[in-house]
């Protein structure tokens, strides 16, 4: 637009320059986004390529450390031909079922106990010692006990997953209740809330962000519980797949199982984030959009 009139000149120029600035900013942001994505791919290619290359040249022994192409082949083989213990999908389903059951039972119990103890100082003072003790035991060890008492079936894995999840969620729910703003609680009381209303409408919502944060972590723990349980003794599941591969000195098999677990964890993480976004819609959005 070179043929603007003199009167409209300054205004048009100002508009134009602002517009240009905006377009520039948008372009810069897009470029940055593109670079980030490209660099992510680059890192993946470099790491996996280096691994594959080192294995091909003979710097590392693929027998002990596996190689990416072997891992890929192993996953493909499991998907198409099934594993030594049956279809891969059945193994995944078994592990998912144990994990989800353990996660649900453990987190519901953790939330209930955390809120109950968080709301009751007296109970909290009594139980705090035992919780500290229970929390300091490496809980994976309990897997052996569960296998002895509950057998090789699903129950022992679920039990281990529950134990893994419970304490994390419990500790967070407890802390969340304790951190609830005192002015807000006093406000609700003066407005007329009963103890029950106070718990359901003030304490639980304000502990919610703590609880949700713990759910992210604890799904991973539930998965660890289920897999370790399978590892210690089972008839089915990804954990058994790992222990079979280990017994056969199949490094690629171990890595392949690991990748399958990672995919399962990421999918679960996606769903938990979805639920979280739904529950905490009232929160201010972070200043910088993530993933830009």
């Amino acid at each position, binding site marked *: 637009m070179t043929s603007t009139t003199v009167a409209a000149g300054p205004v048009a120029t100002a508009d134009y320059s602002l517009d240009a600035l905006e377009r520039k900013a948008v372009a810069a942001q897009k470029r940055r986004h593109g670079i980030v994505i490209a660099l992510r791919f680059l890192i993946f290619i470099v790491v996996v390529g280096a691994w594959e290359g080192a294995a091909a040249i003979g710097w590392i022994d693929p027998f002990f450390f596996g190689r990416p192409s072997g891992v890929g082949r192993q996953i493909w083989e499991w998907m198409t031909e099934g594993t030594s213990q049956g279809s891969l999908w059945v193994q995944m389903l078994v592990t998912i079922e144990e994990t989800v059951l353990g996660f649900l039972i453990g987190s519901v119990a953790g939330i209930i106990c955390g809120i109950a103890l968080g709301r009751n100082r007296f109970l909290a003072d009594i139980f705090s010692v035992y919780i500290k003790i229970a929390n300091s035991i490496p809980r994976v060890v309990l897997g052996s006990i569960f296998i002895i008492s509950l057998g090789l079936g699903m129950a022992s894995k679920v039990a281990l997953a529950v134990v893994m999840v419970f304490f994390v969620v419990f500790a967070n729910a407890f802390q969340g209740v304790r951190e609830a*703003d005192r*002015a*807000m609680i*006093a*406000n*609700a*009381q*003066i*407005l*007329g*809330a*009963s103890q029950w*209303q106070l718990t359901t*409408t*003030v304490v639980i*919502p*304000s502990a*919610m962000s703590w609880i949700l944060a713990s759910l992210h972590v604890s799904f991973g723990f539930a998965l660890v519980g289920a897999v370790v349980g399978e590892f210690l003794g089972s008839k089915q599941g990804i954990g058994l797949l790992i222990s079979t591969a280990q017994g056969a000195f199949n490094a690629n098999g171990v890595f392949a199982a690991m990748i399958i677990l990672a995919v399962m964890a990421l999918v679960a993480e996606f769903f938990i984030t979805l639920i979280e976004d739904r529950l*905490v819609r*009232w*929160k*201010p959005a972070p200043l910088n959009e993530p993933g830009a």
Partner: protein
Amino acid sequence: MPIVRAVSAANEVPAIEITGVTRRFLTPEGTFNTAMRDFSLTVRRGEFVCVVGPTGCGKSTTLNLVTGLISPSAGQVRVMGQPVGGIDRRVGFVFQSDALFPWRSVLDNVAAGPLYRGVPKAQAYDKARQWVARVGLGAYESLYPHQLSGGMRKRVALAQTFINEPEILLLDEPFSALDVQTRTVMQDELLELWSGTQASVVFVTHDLEEAVALADQVVVLTASPATVKKVHRIDLPRPRVMSEIRYEPQFVEIARRIWEDLREEVQIGQRSALAIAA
């Protein structure tokens, strides 16, 4: 519409009667701390009382005694002639900090009181909508607190308290976090809302001008432990306009007189704070 306020006659039962209250509490270090000593204060019905005093002298403790959130170690607190036992339904409280529920929208926040008190849902929301409109936030009723400015959040807090139609209204430095212009607007808003009720008010502040501008009586407290040092009557006519009243000669004269009292206590408070720090 100007409402003629009739502050009750002397023979009527006062709204708040605090007599000879001492409040001691156990600190986490295991020592006893005296927050107030031999504290007496009477607030008559329909009266607006401001409490001023040096920082940390126990102004807020006074309010908490009236709500029933804490109880006195010695002495008595009576609300409408009855001893306080637990939280009184006739009391409303506006907090210094943001005590709104961040997960509830403006409308839900205002409706909280009636809902807690068992008013049917439709009725509670009808009333809440009226109050949201009264504080000028009708267009914002579905927003969450974090989307509002500090002044707007205070309006929500006022509506949340006034909707319960409290007979006794307690305010704990409610406007101290606001900028000066917003504060003046909110003071007018408060007087406007109050003029439509028969409520007795206790307003705690560290701002002497705010106290003089709002109150029928200004109570000056001593440095910790708190006792009443002096009570000043403020005979400025109502309705008052906050942005103008502070330039009237009478206002300046009263403020100066009260400041004489307050200054000594502030200095004592500062000295003891420095002594603790040293």
